[in-house]
């Protein structure tokens, strides 16, 4: 297990190193930041001074070496726009994003797992048909539309919940339901398909003729066997929510890292772009590592071979 962990950690470090190059070059391909950062009346001398101040006048490979050296010390540079350490800015935004992603995943699991299991247990029933309808709807509705509809109903027509902002538990409800509903659709379908397969397996039939109670067969045996692909998918979905919930963050004015990253790219705020991508990448890699560990915990054949 320790070797497995070390291997994965080594792989993660290599990926991160490659990512630094990629994100560094890509950020610079967006163009010259000076027209966006400096006021329009700035002179060419002002621009030159700005470039010199941030080391943008030096050759790219030199800039990269400086960047790498600073990153290793935990310094991602100063935001061009906010004149504050980029890392601190991103850190402040990643908290709300993590919280929203976490709560959304919880919603997706709490909705998707029971619905998928119930549908698998009653093939061909009205319940299964309803679950299919739910999942289709969840997958077909774009999050911005779900978000707007929820705001319309629960913040405007029946004003019981805040339509935007961050800070209280009530603020979580609408964005988390928006994202959670969307993610729950695929969790439902995946659970359904894998549970159906698991319930058909020989060991489930054997347990039935051995008189093992149905509750144990379903929850202890079939569900755990069905859980491996579901766990993989949940990890993937969690990663997507961390980086890609931009639309939902915008709809609900959520102060998250997705919004921050989009703004930083539009403003060519290289340090913030770099810090946001790197931090998100580290989080996604951590999630993947947790998924791999869960795999080993869930399936003895993984850790023993």
């Amino acid at each position: 297990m320790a070797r497995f962990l070390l291997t994965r950690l080594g792989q993660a470090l290599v990926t991160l190193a490659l990512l630094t190059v990629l994100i560094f070059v890509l950020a610079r391909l967006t163009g010259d930041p000076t027209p966006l950062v400096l006021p329009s009346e700035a002179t060419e001398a002002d621009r030159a001074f700005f470039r010199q101040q941030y080391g943008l006048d030096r050759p790219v490979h030199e800039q990269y070496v400086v960047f790498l050296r600073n990153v290793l010390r935990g310094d991602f540079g100063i935001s061009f726009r906010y004149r504050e350490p980029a890392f601190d800015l991103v850190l402040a935004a990643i908290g709300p994003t993590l919280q929203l992603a976490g709560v959304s995943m919880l919603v997706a699991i709490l909705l998707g797992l029971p619905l998928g299991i119930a549908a698998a247990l009653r093939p061909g029933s009205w319940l299964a048909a309803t679950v299919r309808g739910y999942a289709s709807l969840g997958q077909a509705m774009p999050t911005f539309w779900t978000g707007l509809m929820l705001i319309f109903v629960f913040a405007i027509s029946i004003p019981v919940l805040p339509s935007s902002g961050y800070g209280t538990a009530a603020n979580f409800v609408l964005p988390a339901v928006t994202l959670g509903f969307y993610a729950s659709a695929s969790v439902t379908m995946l659970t359904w398909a894998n549970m159906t397969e698991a319930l058909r397996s020989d060991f489930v039939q054997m347990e039935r003729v051995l008189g093992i109670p149905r509750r144990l067969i379903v929850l202890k045996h079939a569900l755990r066997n069905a859980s491996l692909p579901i766990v993989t998918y949940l990890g993937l979905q969690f990663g997507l929510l961390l980086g890609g919930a931009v639309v939902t963050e915008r709809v609900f004015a959520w102060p998250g890292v997705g919004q921050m990253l989009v703004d930083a790219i539009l403003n060519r705020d290289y340090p913030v772009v770099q810090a946001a991508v790197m931090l998100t990448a580290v989080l996604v890699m951590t999630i993947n590592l947790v998924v791999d560990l869960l795999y080993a915990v869930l399936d003895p054949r993984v850790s023993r071979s």
Partner: protein
Amino acid sequence: MPHGEPLLAIRGLNVEFGLPARPVRAVADADLTLAPGEILGIAGESGSGKTTLCAAVMRTLPRTARVSGRVEFAGKELLSLPEREMARLRGRDLAMVLQNPMTSLDPLYTIGNQLEEVLRERRRGGGAGRLGSAVEVLRRVHLTAPELRLRQYPHQLSGGMRQRVLVGMATAAAPRLLIADEPTTALDASIQDEILILFRELRESAGTAVVIVTHDLSAIRRLSDRVVIMYAGRIVEEGPTVEVFRAPRHPYTQALLASLPRIEEEEVVLQPIPGQVPDLARLPPGCAFAARCPAAIPLCREERPRERTVGERHRVFCWRAGEGAA
């Protein structure tokens, strides 16, 4: 039955699948009795209805199956028993070992965990005398190094070892009837005998009656007291194993026995049965075997043969069985 009440009595059992308008009869008009402690072999090709018959007794058929007739087990009519009571019988008085030992254990739990789960369930019901510990259960089925096996996962055991574990689980509470569906088919030839011996030991130590379902006739010959031959969902012949193997009366039984590989003058002779098993949805009005039968007469194609007794407890469904022509 010559002595006392039968343990299992199947009367007019029918199992149908598919649309009511075009039913597929997987089991048709099956009558069968089994005495306590008796070992019965059910033989037939794939699709002859053997496995469906067992699933009907265990009540584990898919919900789409339509079942009629009576299945009496130890005085209870199983087909009309509430599911709760049926669940109480399963694994306790009425046990079964399924076809494939390689996949019949949950790969994610140790043998010990799964065996303890079964034992806990048996104890919860109370009254089970011989249970004993998990190690004892594995000892009874002659599994080597039982303490080690309990800590191992199914993928660390061979097929034969897994089959021993499964037989141990199914028979932990000394059931009155064990149904074994193709218990040796997936195993190496050298292991097959050892598993069959387990069944005989089980009968001797616990008085368990065994129904062994297989297409391996040699296993039936070695193990069972009585044999039932099935073809296209129907019983075609039934009798004491020795008598049926010595003097088979149904042409299908004869063909089946003749198809066993045998050695004549240092050459292996294989004699397959010509033709194919008929489509269960499109059975002819007469005998289902008529199309492949060397002794068929026009009557065979028109009318279904009636039961005919040809010896003590030996019955056959064939128009020509009485004439000695078959």
